[in-house]
């Protein structure tokens, strides 16, 4: 597989899995506005995953659906950071703030890419992600003094570092005003590892597709 397809799939897997997790707040967020917000954010992330899979699928002679749902659990390249089910609101917001900050750096790098297709799609995604960043910022300001939120940021920090390619990590540390974790800490958080919840999530995500293989819906 080309380096380009590999990178596109990694990114798409992150967006698909996080979108799935975000959608789990639909109907049970602390109040109605957040049901709406997280549903919309989830919809955007899954839309981004689809567009990224489509570019990769053209290179690989397959389809976005096949990439999204027909791989075995070990073949997914999603970061362990996006996989856990977070039912605590403070943890969810901490993950949202950290992911959007990291994602902005990833998009900036892709927008500057020589690959016009990738740069064009990244520019499109960035226009939508801007609203996720504003939403995350509003919540960060609201929860800044909350010990549970701060504890969640501390706990999740090493894992979000591993979302980014190595060259972007120092920038993330600078932006979050934190120290980069040691390589020993990062070892089990890098792509290729998966969170404990991953097999169950894979089962759930692919269940319908596996029930009637190859069906057109």
């Amino acid at each position, binding site marked *: 597989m080309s380096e380009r397809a590999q990178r596109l799939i990694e990114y798409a897997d992150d967006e698909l899995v996080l979108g799935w997790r975000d959608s789990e707040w639909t109907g049970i967020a602390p109040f109605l506005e957040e049901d709406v917000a997280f549903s919309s954010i989830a919809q955007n992330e899954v839309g981004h995953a689809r567009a990224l899979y489509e570019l990769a699928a053209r290179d690989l002679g397959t389809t976005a659906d096949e990439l999204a749902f027909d791989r075995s659990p070990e073949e997914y390249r999603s970061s362990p950071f996006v996989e856990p089910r977070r039912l605590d609101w403070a943890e969810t917001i901490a993950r949202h703030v950290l992911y959007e900050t990291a994602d902005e750096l990833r998009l900036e790098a892709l927008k500057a890419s020589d690959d016009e297709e990738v740069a*064009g799609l990244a520019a499109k995604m960035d226009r939508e992600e801007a609203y996720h960043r504003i939403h995350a910022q509003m919540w960060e300001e609201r929860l800044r003094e909350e010990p549970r939120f701060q504890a969640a940021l501390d706990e999740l920090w090493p894992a979000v570092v591993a979302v980014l390619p190595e060259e972007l990590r120092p920038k993330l540390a600078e932006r979050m005003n934190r120290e980069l974790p040691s390589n020993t800490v990062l070892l089990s958080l890098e792509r290729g590892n998966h969170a404990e919840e991953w097999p169950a999530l894979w089962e759930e995500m692919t269940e319908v597709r596996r029930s009637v293989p190859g069906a057109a819906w």
Partner: protein
Amino acid sequence: MVTEQQVWDALREVEDPEIPVISVVDLGVVRDVRVDDGTVHVEFTPTFLGCPALEVMREQMAAKIEELGAEPEVEVILDDSWSTDRITPEGREKLRRSGFSPPAPREATTPKLVQLQSGAFRCPYCGSTETKLENIFGPTPCRSLRYCESCRQPFEQFKTI
């Protein structure tokens, strides 16, 4: 043989399924139409990538072209060439009349919180700029919710992208 003008006219009848007052042409999502013998090639630029209306629009455009007796080829363009600035003046007026506040112009940088909280957004009912942001997100990805302090009416504001 079908002409490009006939295709544009036919596409003007394809509505956005989530905002039926506006057509795909008003919305500016048809970037190009090319007729090549019996094949009509359409370049279609998505609004929001996760918008479920896109598939419906694509199918309806293809059906309209088939009605003209031509073979449709709708290509989805995955780049930043669509912006809310591409909504036509007629389209903006149709939105406003239906209670949707049209999007503010795109700027070089992506929007910031301070802009969304500014007084630049006008109530589509009474025209007041005394409006406040209620929720960045709304019933579809392309809309935010605002509230008019003057006429006490909530309304939907198109996001700028």
